[in-house]
């Protein structure tokens, strides 16, 4: 039983912690001033037999590294089961940024909406920052967000908040404030220009609050440095059959804890719009791979 510390510290009971399902399901590290607890999946450290060979030591170290890299945050589905299969943890981690790269009309925005709908579930709130951050009061943006698309993706209209900042300074401020708020499930924006400093600040803000930030950017932004956890490049593939749905090729350009440049081809069902995997070099969640 931990002793009660002064104000600002947590009062922790060992029994309650160990019996909770959250504690045993994944690696958890609880750090207070006087208590440090480490537990691995299902087994405590004292139960493992000592490693016999060098390979086994390396395997255990890699396993610990991958699980440590997975972090303690929960994951949300990406809205597409095929994509969930190749992402570590089965989806996007809360508190990270996800970047969708694609030309206008390529499908990146709608995929981001599907992922945002999955992140919000039934009760969450999605905040959309309208505009591309380069317009002014006298030169308003020519394209505006269209909420019925979000309704079609599975969100309810009450779950949406749309923010329309008037100029670039307000845009950056509003995006920053939205990322800092722990009450939002997801934030969607399509900044045309994002400096590395601003990007890093957004990533830190998302990490602190636990929201998932979806940024939709043009494909020309691929060479620029990014602080997003996951970067997805969307290539649409033309088809000739009108009864077939939309075919998109997703390339996992960068993902922390997974192999880079994995490709996935998704096709949308013409009737319902759900995405299914047609082809792709899927690999199992690479817990034993070295993250680059």
């Amino acid at each position, binding site marked *: 039983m931990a002793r009660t510390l002064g104000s600002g510290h947590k009062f922790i009971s060992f029994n309650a912690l160990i019996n909770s399902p959250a504690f045993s399901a994944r690696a958890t590290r609880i750090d207070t001033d006087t208590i440090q607890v480490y537990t691995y999946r299902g087994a405590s450290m004292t139960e493992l037999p000592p490693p016999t060979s060098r390979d086994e030591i390396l395997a255990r170290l890699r396993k610990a590294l991958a699980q440590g890299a997975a972090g303690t945050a929960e994951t949300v589905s990406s809205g597409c089961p095929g994509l969930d299969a190749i992402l570590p943890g089965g989806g996007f981690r809360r508190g990270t940024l996800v970047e969708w790269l694609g030309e206008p009309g*390529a499908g990146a925005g709608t995929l981001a909406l599907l992922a945002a709908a999955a992140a919000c579930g039934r009760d969450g709130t999605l905040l959309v920052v309208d505009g591309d951050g380069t317009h002014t009061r006298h030169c308003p943006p*020519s394209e505006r967000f269209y909420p019925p698309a979000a309704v079609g993706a599975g969100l309810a209209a009450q779950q949406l908040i749309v923010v*329309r900042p008037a100029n670039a300074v307000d845009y950056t401020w509003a995006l920053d*404030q939205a990322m800092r708020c722990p009450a939002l499930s997801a934030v969607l924006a399509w900044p045309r220009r994002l400096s590395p400093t601003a990007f890093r600040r957004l990533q830190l803000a998302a990490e602190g609050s636990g929201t998932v930030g979806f940024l939709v950017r043009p494909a020309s932004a691929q060479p620029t440095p990014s602080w997003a956890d996951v970067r997805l490049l969307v290539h649409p593939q*033309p088809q000739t059959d009108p009864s077939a749905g939309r075919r998109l090729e997703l390339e996992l350009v960068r993902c922390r804890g997974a192999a880079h440049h994995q490709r996935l081809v998704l096709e949308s069902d013409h009737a319902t719009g759900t995405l299914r995997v047609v082809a792709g070099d899927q690999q199992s969640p690479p817990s034993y791979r070295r993250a680059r």
Partner: protein
Amino acid sequence: MLETNSRRRPIAEPGDAASDHETAQERWLRLAEVALQISQDFSPTVGLEPFDFPRSLLLDITGLDHLHAKAGQGSSAAPSTSPSLQPYQGQTPGERALVARLQHELRRQGLAASIAVADTIGAAWAWAHYGPELMAAGKPLRVESLPVAALRLSEEPLARLEALGIEWVGQLMALPRAALPSRLGAEVPLRLEQLEGSAAEVIVAYRPPALAAAGRLLEFPVRSPEVLEALLAELLDQVIAALPAGQGIEQLVCRLREEGGRWLQFAVGLYQATACPAHLLGLMRLRLETLPLAEPVEEMHLEVPVAGELTWQQRQLFEPRPDIARQRALLIDRLSTRLGRRAVLRARCVPDAQPEFACRLEPLIPPRLRGTTLRQRQPASARRRMAGKKRWPSGSSSHEGSNSSPSVDPWLRPWRLFARPAPVEVVSVAPDGPPQSFLVRSRQRPLNGNRVNTQTRLLRIVRHWGPERIETAWWRGQLVRRDYYRVEIEDGRWFWLFRDLRNGRWFWHGSFG
């Protein structure tokens, strides 16, 4: 000088037995309540008579009679319980209708009132108080027949007039005006002139006091923002302490007076009622930064015109994401304060076929209610009902994504629409047929400020879905007839085009994803 078509109308509550038991304070409060209710329905300027214990209300109904004229024409339109009106209760049909409605409204609230309409305040007051007496006595209804007490004189001039044997206003008017001040004091000729209309008199409109207010006059003018913030924090603490228990602030108005005498004012509206000084101070700081202060500030006032119920939530000890609703409200407050109330919006899908109007974006924070107190605000449900009544009637049948049955297809509607549809040139095989290719002139607005370069590209269409015919909006003026096509071009991208059926021109409305 008063205009000839202006009217003043006092309402006097006769002192019946029940109301004699009320103290003057209670009567004043009741009169103030009545004044507020009347000011919403009948006249924008309603004032209490400027006495220590007012018993009458003064309304300015200049130019308002035409609003009631049609409603009141004919005895069938007037309420059945209203008696026939006296000659001094309005000369035009509109005025008489207004008086009848006002009497009906006051009787509905249990008040008996004597109403008179005249060109000046003095005349209206006189007729309202002494008109019924004259009617009962059967005397001619002229200003000269009114007793001198109708001139709103104090006791001393009245006593002198009685001693002199002057009983009627007519007798007083016959005397030479220049001799009156020396004999009877200055009040008598002033009241006479006010009755006739040659002396100006104004109605001071009654405004309800704010729910909680605090003010401070500074000894030395202050210019630095940090000191202003500290002073505002003190005033905020006073205002919060003055609020009734369980009430929080929903709107806050701050007024600052500069050294030159100019008043500056800003208001902060909140999504949820709050009594948290730190949050309110943060919002006021956001506003103070953009306030154009030319000179140092000498005086500051804080007022709370609208308050609301505070919602209390029991906090749990180990909440994973504490207080989500509260944090959401704080974020909305902060965004609305800095970006403006109309920049933070919520979506409401309406069953309108025209895509631009299929979704209404409304501000999350309601507009500032002027001059209302806590009792008079409508409940939120009534406000929502009133907002919902402004919806357009539902258009033709082709609408998807409405709030009744949300469709699950994300590829039905584009996620971004052009604010104004962009005209494109389309090549199609048949004049009414689907498009085969379209010409796009893209004007890239470069980030480094160089000259805009225009590119022209011909995009060949590989697949198309449509047409989706939308014919609607005849009630908005011009009928909108469009054939929408969802097209896939040769590199796989999807766009939304439509042909305007009125002139056959093609437009590009949005892109999918």
